């Protein structure tokens, strides 16, 4: 699980990009705490061929990226 809570733009999507490039995973789980990060990660994930599921996790949002 990538914890991108509390990070300014574009660090959340950079963390995901770094993880995806290094591991080429089928599944990535990320937790973020603001809508800009949700949208940025979703756009990046879609551009890399991932489908994104979004679920509320308390005050945060959990994103699940699947190939």
């Amino acid at each position, binding site marked *: 699980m990538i914890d991108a*809570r*509390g*990070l*300014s*733009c*574009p*660090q959340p*999507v*950079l963390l995901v*990009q*770094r993880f995806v490039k290094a591991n080429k995973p089928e599944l990535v789980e990320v937790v973020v*705490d*603001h*809508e*800009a990060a949700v*949208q*940025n990660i979703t*756009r*990046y994930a879609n*551009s890399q061929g991932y489908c994104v599921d979004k679920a509320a996790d308390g*005050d945060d949002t959990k994103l699940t990226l699947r190939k």
Partner: protein
Amino acid sequence: MRNILKKYWLVVLTGLCVGAAAVFLTAEGNPANMGFCIACFIRDITGAVGFHGAGVVQYVRPEIIGLVLGAFIISVIRREWKPTGGSSPMTRFLLGMIVMIGALIFLGCPLRMVIRIGGGDLNAIVGLLGFVVGILIGVVPLKLGFTLKRAYKQSKVEGLIFPALMVILFVVSILAPALFKSSVEGPGSQHANVYIALVVALIVGALCQQSRLCMAGGVRDAVMFKDFKLIAGFIAIIVAVLVGNLIVKGSLAFSFEGQPIAHTDGVFNFLGMALVGWGSVLLGGCPLRQLILAGEGNTDSAITICGFVAGAAVAHNFGLASSGAGIGTGPVLIVVIASLVILALVSVFNIAKGEK
């Protein structure tokens, strides 16, 4: 096609509205090619409360208040209002000062830079080059793991302070205008009707909050992620301003000389905006975005805006701010070099260990 529309419509609509609002507010009395400059208007408020003594740029600009409150209201309605803070506030304050000083050397924030381009001011193209170069430099530490550390959840009171200050500033400026300094000549004396400006800014603030429009983010995301969403908003502003100016004035004159509230010193136009670009990338957003984030409850952005205010005071009190006549009479070059060194130090010393 549907996906493209879904991705771009809101940010393009926001860009068009921001551009149209700038032209409209200028027609209503705001300074030419300014309409909606975040740096200039924060500077004017700084002067209005007496933090600097430049008599021609003092006025409580309702646009700044409206942008913050528009973002605040819509984020509360959409349940996106979230008080956070604690991500290197002192560093952000310092970066805010540098961004503001850079903007006042160029004479405009990234938003006014775009508005100036749309108004035919070629000096702003030089500024744009500096802005892009500054962003490209700032992207390097980001890729190496630069971070100002995490922000954490804060109390509601903490998140409410900045929007509340905006409300108080507005109410007091209406009820007791004599408390504030107000320019009788120069750009500070040129302004649209207070309520018209406030309403326009409330709408634009809400749109910016929902679309996440950001001038620095536009170039940054295009370079780092080949993501052109935010830059589409940037381009939409230019288009709206160009078309708006054509409608209002009937023609456009592209030139370096004789542009309103602009100077022709290319080196300092470039360097000023390079400071803004680099600083904004490290902050995670341009001055406009900082206002919106502060409205959303981000107290780190509120501190950054306090840095903008301090930067504006320093810029005018120490002769660093430019004017239509040229660059300031103070030690502008020394401050630019010192600011570049500080940005480099902040960039290097905040790269997290173990990151690549």
